[in-house]
């Protein structure tokens, strides 16, 4: 079992200004925009590089702010009306890909979509992982869904939270916050 030290917790809501890399604007869903903003906040707070960081994401739904209009477009106008970024913007693992590319992280990255248990399963997988990494990000994406067909299926909640852990104890670590003992 991996022993990790909690370094930082942060969150982003719809009231935050979104920090999206210029080359990713219009190509990603709101869930990824919020993850970009979240990780930017964490990085600024810690002044750390994320190169050997594992990314575990709890993301219950897909990106429907991007995918909803694409579904309508394909039904009404045919497949040529679908944007070319649908395949990469919509699926739940988009967040881990966008963050790993933007921050040049090469460690293991996995996304869990087990309903309300997603975060539990992501956290368990992080602590059970046999992969080699020096730090880890646990990102919770409260998925942004859509008013499908002009009726509200899910409200736009727009909340993302993140926890940054390290394998080594640092001055920023909080002693009492590593949740599972090393065995």
């Amino acid at each position, binding site marked *: 079992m991996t022993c990790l030290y909690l370094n930082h917790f942060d969150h982003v809501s719809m009231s935050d200004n979104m920090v999206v890399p210029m080359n990713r604007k219009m190509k990603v869903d709101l869930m990824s925009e919020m993850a970009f903003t979240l990780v930017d906040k964490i990085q600024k707070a810690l002044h750390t590089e994320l190169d050997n960081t594992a990314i575990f994401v709890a993301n219950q739904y897909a990106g429907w702010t991007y995918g909803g209009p694409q579904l309508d477009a*394909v039904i009404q106008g045919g497949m040529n009306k679908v944007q070319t970024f649908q*395949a990469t913007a919509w699926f739940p693992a988009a967040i881990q890909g966008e963050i790993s590319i933007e921050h040049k992280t090469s460690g293991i990255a996995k*996304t*869990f979509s*087990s309903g309300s248990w*997603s975060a539990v*399963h992501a956290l368990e997988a992080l602590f*059970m992982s046999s992969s080699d990494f020096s730090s880890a990000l646990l990102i919770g994406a409260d998925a942004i869904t859509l008013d499908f067909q002009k009726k509200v299926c899910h409200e736009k909640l727009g909340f993302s939270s993140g926890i940054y852990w390290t394998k080594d104890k640092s001055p920023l670590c909080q002693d009492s916050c590593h949740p599972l003992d090393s065995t």
Partner: protein
Amino acid sequence: MNKVYILRSSVVSPLGNTNTDNFVNQIDGKHGISVMESHGVSPWKSKFCAKVTSKSKSTRTVDDIAKIAAENLVEDFPGVLSNARVIMGTAVGSAVELEYERRRNKLPDESFFSFEKAGISVSNTIKSSKKPIAVSTGCTAGLDAIGLAFDRLRLGFEDIVVAGASEATICEIVVASFDRINALSCAENCDSASIPFCDDRSGFVIGEGAGLVVMCTDKYIEQSGLEPIAEFLGWESISSNFHMTAIDQKGTDIATSITKLVKKCNVDPIDIKFVDTHGTSTYQNDCAEFAALIGIFGLNPEIHVTCQKSLNGHALGAASAIEIANIVEFIRNRKVPGYVNSDRVSSDFKRLPFTTKPKAVRDGDLFLKIANGFSGIHSTGLIRAL
């Protein structure tokens, strides 16, 4: 640390809804690729798909397909699986049902937005009361689910797990997503639609299906007296941080995943006898995978290379689970099919020893499975024949 074994697998694919159908058709080199019917306002640019067939329904859903695979396991192990944790992968979840409901102008059921339906379907079928785990890492989801099962078993958090993935993909929004980025095959002939590593390949054929494996610990084997087919030695997964869809054609990231895996499992690459490629039939994947394999294995003529997507198409998140479930069946039957298009392999890739001939499996033979996916995910797994 526990050792992790594989007791049995179950495959539902365009080649058939039973392990036997899948094994026989693979050995015979028959493909499951057929003409794709369009339900939308525009014709498909890609003409072919690899669809699961059924007498009772024309369209299968992700949970239907998973259920068929789980029912096959229950037949093999009546009463054994009720204590098992289910870990299931999927890339597109219930996209088929969502699109169907949207076309009917109906407000979709909330469950259609979930990625859990396949796992719940398998859990219900095997009568497990444990909360299923849903993994949604795109096209590596199947191998990732099996790898995550390995982690839980290795540390003793579970005794027995049913792991794998299920996918239903044949709907306009899913096909359009890949068609718009020119990832799908443009072949005019279904026999040439999915031909990894061949000169005239033009992309992948979208497929569907499910693959499940029953995994357990060495302690469970001792207590139950059940006989394992294979040992799962370990897995590795890295992020390339290269591009959301593209792969570095030098193969560096695939090679890194393999190198880390063999080191972790304490295996010399020269001892690996079988390599089951990701083999999508896209130019980028073929170049990257070839470079990685040549870099690691050199010109070892003893390696037997397989490309299951040439017959099954690409079932996205379920692909690697179907392929691992088939590997388990190859081991059980002591025979691995060759690559049916070996004689058409591009001269660029001839240094890999492709052959049409099946190869016999011996005790202790090692199988390497490779899976690549969008978001720059490169996962690998290592299986030992018993």
